């Protein structure tokens, strides 16, 4: 990322906004990286000889007489095996005290994968969390965000998922992470002894918000290197994409763009898609699976950021605090994994789809009973059974601290069904009941 010495130096800035500055320069390429003293910047508009630079560290304290050098190429990342186990800032420079990585310089925000070269994602990605594996099964090559309110432990959950998933590499892109959260990730990975397969690109809340714009592209470039060049299974974690989108809005605003919904730039969909669509399953077995975090404002999913995200990603996972069991659970109603159909009952046990649906349906009955109770109506015997089932279900399967295999989840599911219900109440195919229903039913007893 260092500037080349023979490049011409410019010394006169004509206009400075909070996020951009303009200078007169010739021979500049669109998207080119420039250095204003020690601040990196990117050419985002060129009119004749007037170049608008987006200054990643902000323009605070920037003098009109700063030295500006153009590097002649867009922001890039040196990729090689040496990336493993390292922590970088948004510009790809080490912040772990180590030396810069040597390797092939790759332009970030690279080309799209030709759709005909993609493979259909159908390899199960187990996390041990039943709220995910049982109800919203993930598949390698999938992209899925956690929709969570800011007070929920989403970073803890994605760190947990990352550690349990069988990935060759874990790439973490942190945008606006609090320093505490950053240290949490670092300590968790170190404690688990997996630092050698981690690559981090971190922008904390102490860093400039505009620098965040580079983080997902840096992380995707590293992930693509391992997934395609090295044919590895890569898990890419991005937290928090809402803060990334906020940074987009700042730049758009300073560029005098007309905002669309919720003050977001009109290109928000394309901007987010260019990141999320990096999730891919290659024919050769390499893959990028993307697990992101989109923080919500009091659960509002109609806001432009979660709304556009929902149209791009393959489902979403909702976290919710369940006061009945005093734990955070994965909400079975609002969560969805679009690609689960590719694996459940095929790569997992045959009874998976039916057991999953039966449990959710009965949980829905329990929620109805709960409403009934709250409204002061009398509960019948079935309602009571549903309620006690829902507690068990939340405790043993929905809570995010569960860590068991999919078979164990299904066995637990059968156990709960038999504990609280009769055969005819669960709505499962006879063929499966014959095989898995162990309890003597009332009629046959």
């Amino acid at each position, binding site marked *: 990322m260092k500037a080349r010495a023979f490049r011409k130096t410019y010394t006169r800035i004509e206009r400075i906004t909070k996020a951009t500055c303009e200078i007169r320069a010739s021979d500049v390429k669109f998207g080119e990286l420039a250095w204003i003293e020690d601040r990196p910047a990117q050419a985002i508009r060129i009119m004749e000889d007037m170049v608008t630079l987006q200054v990643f560290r902000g323009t605070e304290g920037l003098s009109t007489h700063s030295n500006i050098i153009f590097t002649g190429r867009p922001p890039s990342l040196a990729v090689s095996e040496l990336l493993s186990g390292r922590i970088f800032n948004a510009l790809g420079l080490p912040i772990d005290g180590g030396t810069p990585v040597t390797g092939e310089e790759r332009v970030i925000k690279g080309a799209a*994968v030709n759709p005909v070269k*993609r493979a259909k*994602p159908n390899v199960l990605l187990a996390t041990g969390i039943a709220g995910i594996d049982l109800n919203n099964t993930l598949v390698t090559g999938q992209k899925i965000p956690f929709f969570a309110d800011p007070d929920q432990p989403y970073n803890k959950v994605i760190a947990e998922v990352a550690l349990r998933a069988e990935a060759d590499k874990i790439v973490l892109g942190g945008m606006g992470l609090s320093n505490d959260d950053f240290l949490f990730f670092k300590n968790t990975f170190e404690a688990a002894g997996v630092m050698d397969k981690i690559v981090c690109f971190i922008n904390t809340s102490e860093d400039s918000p505009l620098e965040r714009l580079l983080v997902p592209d840096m992380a995707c470039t590293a992930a693509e290197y391992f997934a*395609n060049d090295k044919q590895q299974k890569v898990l890419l974690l991005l937290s928090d994409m809402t803060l990334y989108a906020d940074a987009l809005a700042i730049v758009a605003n300073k560029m005098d763009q007309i905002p669309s919904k919720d003050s977001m730039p009109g290109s928000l969909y394309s901007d987010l*898609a260019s990141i999320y669509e990096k999730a891919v399953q290659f024919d050769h077995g390499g893959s990028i699976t993307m697990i992101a975090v989109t923080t919500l404002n009091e659960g509002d999913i109609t806001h*432009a950021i979660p709304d556009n995200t929902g149209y791009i990603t393959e*489902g979403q996972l909702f976290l919710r605090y369940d006061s009945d069991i005093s734990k955070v659970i994965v909400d079975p109603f609002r969560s969805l994994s679009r690609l689960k159909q590719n694996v459940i009952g095929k790569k997992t046990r045959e009874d998976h789809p039916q057991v999953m649906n039966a449990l959710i349906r009965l949980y829905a009955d329990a929620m109805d009973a709960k409403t009934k109770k709250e409204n002061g109506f009398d509960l019948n015997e079935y309602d009571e059974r549903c309620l006690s089932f829902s507690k068990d279900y939340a405790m043993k399967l929905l809570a995010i601290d569960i860590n068991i295999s999919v078979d164990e989840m299904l066995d637990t599911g059968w156990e709960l069904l038999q504990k609280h219900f009769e055969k005819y109440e669960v709505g499962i195919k006879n063929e499966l009941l014959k095989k898995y229903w162990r309890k003597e039913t009332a009629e046959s007893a």
Partner: protein
Amino acid sequence: MTRGNVTGVIANLLLIKVEGATTQNEICLVQAADKLLKAEVILVQKNIASAQLFESSSSIQIGAEVQFTGRMLEVELGPGILSKKYDGLQSDLEKMSGTFIEIGDSTPALDNDAKYEFTPLAVENDVVKAGSWLGFVMENNIEHKIMVPFSWKGDYKVTWIATKQTCGLHDVVAKVKDNQGNELEISMVQQWPVKVPLTGFVEKLRPGKIFHTGLRVIDTLNPMMEGGTGYIPGPFGTGKTVLQQAIAKNSEADVLVIVACGERANEVVEIFSEFPNLIDPVTGHKLDAKTTIICNTSNMPVAAREASVYVGMTIAEYYRCMGLKVLLLADSTSRWAQALREMSNRLEELPGQDAFPVELPSTIANFYSRTGIVKLNNGKLGSVTFIGTISPAGGNFKEPVTESTSKVAQCFYALSQKRADSKRYPAIDPLASYSKYIDYPEFESYSDVNIQHGWVEEINKVKEYLKIGLEARDQINILGDDAVPISYHINFWKSELIDFGIIQQNSFDDIDMRTEMERQQYMLNFMLEICAVEYQFEEFEEVRDFFKNIINLVSQMNFSEFSSSDFKENEEQARKTILEKTKNYESQGVS
């Protein structure tokens, strides 16, 4: 050729200083490193042309040379389009070698070395004009007509036509003379600018003949016509794409053009992996033999999104001129509108609602009006039926794309979050949705003859039952089960019966996924028969038990082969149950 130089770059908008004449919507080629990148002129001010680049503008330098081609964005039309997977500019994706689509990668649309057996249809001295059939070649299982180029005006006389023989794509297969005596040669391939409607037919007719999709909620309740238009708006997760794919798999189209416009790449991959293995229920051949896919997924260049829908439409119009029933599907038109918005914004135009360009409604209207059923030069009919999906922001239908489309599309298939949540698929809301074709006298007379006399009345009757049922449900929810008359429960359960018997359909079940019109007619009549019976119940719980039983039997009918013994047994059982119920009541009434 006009030349110019790049003087400004704002994302994929280029400002070009032009030396000489330029035309609006002209394609120009921009030099970037060792490649020429396509861009389209979208605004001219004095000697500065603004052009949208169909690629990432990364690495474009001020001063870069630009050549103006003098032609608008064109597609190549000829045999070999079917089974192809194109990008938004009609590059054949399978001919690209790399894993990634690099800036400027482009490949020929047709297989230029391919040979086809040409069979003449015209003879010497025939008088022909644009769109006239000269002969045909077999493309997969379709007679691909070789036609007089659509851009030619006036009448021509055939002076020579090839005999039945194997020809190359670019070989001359016919020669014609214009009225000035100039001889012109015709091959199997021609070009057409995508933004201009492709004519070559005599007149457009009013749709009135049902376009069978195999989905009951569409065919029975909100029918689509050959040459008709429809749109499917819905929040994410309500099954827009699944519904469109179900239509693609089961419709009676001769040719299927799918435009994946700014959506997920994995969804296209699903089509790629499924269609070659699926059998088209109409032709019995592999589904991909009649299908062309144009994909510009959400991470591919934004400007080519707009191009992709026009490329799809032009290809559909081309096959229509061969006298075929073409179905064009676009998922999603919102992404196209967003691409227009991004560009309008960069041009610093005054924005319309939600920052969309003010001409959005007319752009959408012009696009939808290119569909239709047409009479060709030889009196035969051809049609382009179009169904587009819309992804409204926040799931709110009060937004410019949905509103503009509602003014031009005749069928509206509203996907409801509530139905999707309760797993009632397809999640089409039967009452909010509509087909304006039901009120067309053309459809009424067509259905009177081809389906059954008074069919339209029957449809309206079913809708009435649904409406009354909905009202009853609201009352029950407000007042409670006990507080409403039993008749409310009966009305509610009648609408549930229609919901389960007609509207809900399992697109993963081999039999239920596609329902023939004859069977739809049978089921509609059966449902109406059940609903017409006067029922009497003592308790509201009785109503539920009774109808749950009937619904179960009707569902079993839907899962069995039409008129099979299973089917008949369940029907018999249902009739018996109803008869017993009414008898029971009558005998009670006597005593």
